[in-house]
């Protein structure tokens, strides 16, 4: 009996180890094979010679710009949605619907967002396939992340602050703006950073909303097509005419993307950790 339990217990430890081991191995593999490729030239130059040489600057640029653009939409919408849920609509039916929708958005397959982005932003709203359509599409995809994170932060603001505010004659909006929101700022920041980490790595929603295989110039307006790190990895590994030859470029691109998403996520974890410590 005792012995059997020890085995079971070790199995759960083993499961944990396997997961962490796999995770580390993935990072290690990409790092090991990609690090040698990363040079200033690789980061700052466009691809050359049919994308078999040169750098990935346009892809980095496209990824950053579309992600920044996404933030502009998703942060205000996400934060105010969370404010509604936590400050105005506690227990209301509208809140229940919002929650259902947020939950649902979090699990809609990303390719479906791609279809929607094409059907709605690109074709129906006539925004065309470009940075803006892609940013809006990814923005909807990451909306739940911002909402959940902000809501957690709002919930952690003690009610006594709100009461004190009201007792001094502050209106609801004044209490939210000058007491609740400043307190929730780290949580909002976490949400924004996490949404960046997630949004950067998404490729499927871009496929029909403006990502380009190769562009000789950088996008100059938000309606222009763009190159993207994740998409670059995909085409270089599956459609480039010499897949073996461009392995280093593939690894280098994967490493750049992985470092970006990992660091955003680690920063978010760190802020969240500090926030929770401060609270207790």
């Amino acid at each position, binding site marked *: 009996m005792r012995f059997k339990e020890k085995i079971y217990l070790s199995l759960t430890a083993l499961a944990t180890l396997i997961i962490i081991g796999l995770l580390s191995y993935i990072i290690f593999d990409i790092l090991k094979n990609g690090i040698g490729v990363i040079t200033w030239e690789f980061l700052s130059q466009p691809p050359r010679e049919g994308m078999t040489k040169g750098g990935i600057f346009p892809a980095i640029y496209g990824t950053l710009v579309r992600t920044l653009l996404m933030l502009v939409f998703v942060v205000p919408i996400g934060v105010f949605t969370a404010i509604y849920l936590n400050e105005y609509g506690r227990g209301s039916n509208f809140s229940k619907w919002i929650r259902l929708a947020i939950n649902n958005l979090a699990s809609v397959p990303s390719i479906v967002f791609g279809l929607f982005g094409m059907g709605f932003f690109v074709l129906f709203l006539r925004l065309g396939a470009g940075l803006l359509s892609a940013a809006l599409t990814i923005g909807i995809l990451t909306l739940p992340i911002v909402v959940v994170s902000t809501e957690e932060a709002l919930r952690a603001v003690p009610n006594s*602050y709100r009461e*004190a505010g009201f007792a*001094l*004659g*502050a209106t609801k909006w004044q209490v939210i703006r000058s007491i609740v929101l400043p307190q929730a700022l780290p949580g909002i920041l976490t949400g924004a950073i996490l949404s960046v980490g997630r949004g950067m790595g998404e490729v499927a929603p871009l496929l029909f909303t403006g990502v380009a295989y190769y562009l000789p110039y950088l996008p100059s307006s938000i309606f222009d097509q763009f190159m993207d790190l994740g998409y670059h990895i995909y085409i270089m590994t599956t459609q480039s005419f010499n897949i073996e030859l461009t392995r280093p470029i593939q690894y280098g691109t994967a490493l750049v993307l992985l470092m970006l998403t990992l660091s955003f996520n680690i920063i978010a974890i760190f802020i969240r950790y500090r926030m929770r410590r401060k609270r207790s």
Partner: protein
Amino acid sequence: MNNKLKIKISVRNLNIYYGKFLAIKNITLDIPERSITAVIGPSGCGKSTFLRALNRMNELLPDVKTEGEVSIDGRNIYSPDVDLVKLRRNVGMVFQRPNPFPKSIFENVAFGLRIQGIRDRERIEETVELSLRRAALWDEVKDKLYKSALELSGGQQQRLCIARALAVQPQVILMDEPASALDPIATLRIEDLMRELKEEYTIVIVTHNMQQAARVSDFTAFFLTDEDRAGMLIEYGNTSDIFTMPKDPRTEGYITGRYG
């Protein structure tokens, strides 16, 4: 009761429900101006509920229903045309646990002015200083006005909360067990402060501490729950009368029980 005093707050047939539960039942009493009125009674008898009815704070909770009338200076604060913001500026509140905002000492006191849209730096500074002086805190904090309020001791924080309430120039101050989280020395300071403040303000205080009620208040209201757990006013009068010759045996029981 002393008839010469002007009545500041007059409560008529006040019932308050949390959902279906009747928390206080048919309270009627008059609170005189520039005096301290203490509300005492066992836990759960509706003291806080009563106090929070005087600045309509109960409305922040979902599902609270209020019946009856509360008039301040002869105006029913529950009539539909009352501006809640004005009401709460007129009726300040100090809570059981000190709850300064996580801002600087200065910003805490200035908060009430800022939300009124006052931008005049000089005027704000003047009011902050005056309020801190009135709350007997100025000397202790004048050198660290821009430090976080959370660095103050519990007693200082509570006086800061009083200063914060004073800054919006209320006429009435409600205090819900303002000293229960403080040590005896800090408690005495708060009590001294209350005595000074009553020269200008009408103060209503909820307290569990019988000696405190006897020490600082001019009038005392004793609450008790009935068999349905609804809070009722048992006896109300001059503090000295209530403590020396209570009319109701239940009051006597409560007071002596606590003393004895």
